[in-house]
């Protein structure tokens, strides 16, 4: 899985296309879409000598980390909402830690994927400036700013300078007793401990990315350590949680002391949790796991809002749309599921992968060619990567014709309190999990493009403003620049306005229905 944190890739100074990669024989360095060619820009990898991983046990997660100038004033974002981002990330981590079932994902609230709709545009323009100037730096200065790709493979965490053409990581951190499973970056961490690393032993470290980059050793420096049972080695806080009574039941246990970390433990389900994602406004949390269920929680009330089962098999990844209306999931049924928060059910299946779907993401930087600003015709673009080594791009077309398919009898829709889209409430009640849908009931989508991007099964996908980033299990990362970037040098104000447009062009109270782009089910 991947997370975007103010992701930005500066335009290449020379647009010469890279030579074919000797590591990926037979794989093209571009792919065509209706909007133009995506070109392979850079590849990031690690020399295999750095690794001592056990076969079949590799998990690669990639995140983008944006280091600002040290002297830079505090960011213009993160304060607009009612909570502090840095304490938020701790609690988010903490709440998902120590459930004893091998969580693989960590997340920062307000950090990775946590930009609030309101502040999204300013956040992005702010970091764009930083990224632009970083292109002028020929040598990476660890004291300075920059955009880094952080990824874990085997027993190591690697850090690459995103904007340098250098393939090799600038830093590797090895863990002798355990493998890193996941990590997250929070640019707004107040104490400077902005990088969070979760190990398969259940331990979590929080460190300063800058500090790691300044250090030349392969060790983790200046880390704060939290272990599985929730104790912090340095602090004396005690926050052990009671044993889980019924592993099939969702339970939330709060820590005894308000200052202890973790602050709470959410026991969600039996079996591993394979991915978690916060909605962009931070209000909802989605989880997917071994039991095949997608679950959506209201984060503040800690209540299950809705959820449903995969067609079959475990779910491996999940991701929210910018506007919080849709969630994508992918899993062992080879399908990409589109879950509607409004309908509280699966509204489409993407069929096209030849193996398990391991990464999904909405392309929030993409704007529909049909968008005329009136919001009458909205299309979502999303991507998926699979263990079939393919990247698939999909379009989800939404019409604004307000014709609910199942308006309750008696005329006016019933609105329950607190819900902005309550006319479906009588169909699927709040707080329930849906069984696997029948095949014939789900509209099917076909991909816009399917392209084999790596030789190894893929593990992650990320959209940034100027590119698509793909990562495989073995820890190779490819950065594909968008057609607009390679054809015309992008300009920041235009890009920013696109984002602003996207985040405001979904009127809250209008029911968008799936249009003809979703074909009837084919058996």
């Amino acid at each position, binding site marked *: 899985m991947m997370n975007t944190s103010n992701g930005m890739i500066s335009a290449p100074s020379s647009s010469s296309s890279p030579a074919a990669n000797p590591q990926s024989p037979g794989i093209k360095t571009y792919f065509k879409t209706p909007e133009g060619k995506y070109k392979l820009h850079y590849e990031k990898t690690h020399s295999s000598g750095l690794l001592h991983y056990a*076969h*079949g*046990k590799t998990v690669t997660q990639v995140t983008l980390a944006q280091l600002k100038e040290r002297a830079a004033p505090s960011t213009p974002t993160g304060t607009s909402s009612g909570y502090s981002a840095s304490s938020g990330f701790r609690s988010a981590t903490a709440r998902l830690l120590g459930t004893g079932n*091998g969580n693989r994902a960590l997340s920062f609230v307000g950090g990775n994927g946590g930009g609030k709709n309101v502040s999204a545009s300013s956040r992005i323009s702010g970091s764009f400036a930083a990224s632009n100037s970083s292109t002028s730096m020929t040598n990476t200065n660890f004291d300075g700013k920059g955009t880094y790709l952080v990824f874990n493979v085997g027993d190591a965490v690697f850090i690459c300078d995103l904007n340098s053409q250098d393939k090799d990581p600038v830093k590797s951190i090895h863990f002798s007793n355990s493998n890193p499973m996941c990590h997250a970056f929070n640019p707004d961490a107040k104490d400077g401990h902005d990088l969070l690393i979760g190990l398969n032993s259940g331990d979590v470290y929080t460190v300063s990315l800058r500090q790691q980059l300044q250090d030349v050793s392969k060790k983790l420096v200046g880390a704060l350590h939290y272990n599985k049972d929730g104790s912090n080695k340095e602090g004396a806080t005690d926050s052990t949680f009671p044993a889980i009574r019924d592993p099939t039941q969702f339970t939330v246990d709060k820590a005894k002391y308000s200052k202890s970390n973790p602050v709470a433990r959410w026991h969600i389900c039996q079996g*591993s949790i394979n991915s978690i994602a916060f909605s962009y406004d931070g209000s909802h949390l989605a989880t997917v796991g071994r039991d*095949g269920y997608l679950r959506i929680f209201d984060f503040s009330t800690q209540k299950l809002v809705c959820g449903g089962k995969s*067609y*079959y*098999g*475990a779910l491996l990844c999940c991701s929210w749309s910018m506007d919080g209306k849709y969630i994508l999931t992918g899993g*062992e*049924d*080879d399908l990409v599921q589109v879950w509607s928060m409004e309908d509280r059910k699966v509204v489409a299946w993407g069929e096209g*992968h*030849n*193996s*398990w779907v391991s990464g999904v993401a909405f392309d929030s930087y993409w704007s529909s060619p049909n968008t005329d600003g009136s919001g009458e015709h909205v299309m979502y673009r999303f991507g998926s990567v699979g*263990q*079939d*080594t393919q990247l698939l791009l999909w379009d989800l077309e939404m019409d604004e014709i307000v014709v609910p398919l199942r308006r309750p009898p008696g005329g006016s829709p019933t609105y329950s309190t607190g819900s902005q889209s309550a006319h479906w409430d009588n169909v699927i009640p709040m707080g329930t999990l849906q*069984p*696997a849908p*029948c*095949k*014939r009931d789900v509209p099917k989508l076909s991909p816009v493009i399917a392209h084999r991007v790596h*030789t*190894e*099964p893929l593990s992650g996908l990320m959209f940034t403003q100027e590119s698509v980033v793909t990562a495989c*299990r073995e820890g190779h990362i490819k950065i594909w620049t968008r057609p607009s970037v390679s054809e015309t040098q992008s300009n920041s104000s235009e890009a920013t306005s696109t984002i602003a447009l996207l985040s405001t062009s979904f009127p809250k109270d209008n029911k968008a229905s799936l249009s003809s782009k979703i074909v009837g089910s084919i*058996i």
Partner: protein
Amino acid sequence: MGAAGSKLEKALGDQFPEGERYFGFENFGNTCYCNSVLQALYFCAPFREQLLEYCANNKSVADAEENLLTCLADLFSQISSQKKKTGVIAPKRFVQRLKKQNELFRSYMHQDAHEFLNYLLNELVDILEKEAKGTKTDNESSSSNGLKVPQANGVHKEPIVTWVHKIFQGILTNETRCLRCETVTARDETFLDLSLDIEQNSSITSCLKNFSSTETLHAEDKFFCDKCCSLQEAQKRMKIKKPPHILVIHLKRFKYMEQLGRYKKLSYRVVFPLELKLSNTVEEYVDIEYSLFAVVVHVGSGPNHGHYVSLVKSHNHWLFFDDENVEMIEESAVQTFFGSSQEYSSNTDHGYILFYESLGTR
């Protein structure tokens, strides 16, 4: 047997399933192909149940002629009646009988586990059919098993449906549509397992899809249409008309390479989910869910040598059977047997035969 047995018992502790036995099989020189398949069959609940019942019913005819069925039934009852919970058993009589009966399995050469499974199931069917016919001629007035009595001189004999059929048999329908007159001709065939072609970095779901993909018959491959009374271009499609209760999937990992003049092992990474639904059934059987309960694994880089082990799910625990050795493994360890995404890899343990049990209709 003591050390390994007690270790497994310790690992299971008070979670050791009531009445269950976990016994490794001794290897009599390259008999791992047999051991791995027998373990998978032992943990195939309906199969074991039927075989133990058969064994109990046949106790009275102690002097009945020995055959593969009686040998297998004896072996299963021997395991299930062990005092100890774990240990090692020598399936000597069964293996001797197998070798006596079929030249193919007589040598000490490496054998193919799928070929053995296929031979065994067909042999069991033959024996059961003969027995059913035998009881009918002895006792013509009624059929005790609810089977139809074959008509004395009828041309169409009602096929005998044995319990092996009831467990493993499915029906495929081969639909051919003439491209000239659009007439669809359907031909049904039964199967005890499905042999699937595999592709690198694919899933079982995708292999099943390919198995049922539409094929166009043209050029020298034209189809004789009864309606047009001539060879015509046609479209052919294979669908599952009746899915079996136990779905056995054989991955075609051994491929004949014409330019080499020999078989080659395909180590492709083919992922198999723990739960599965078939995409290629007729409408009536869509959405039936299957659950994986056993995997026969081929270990080794070539077809002519190597080893077989099996993974088995019993009472929600996964167990690893390697001849005499039985170990408990994590469910997540199943994914280390998917195969390799690189041609040359140190990982040579690949899922070869998959056993799925139907969970009924949704």
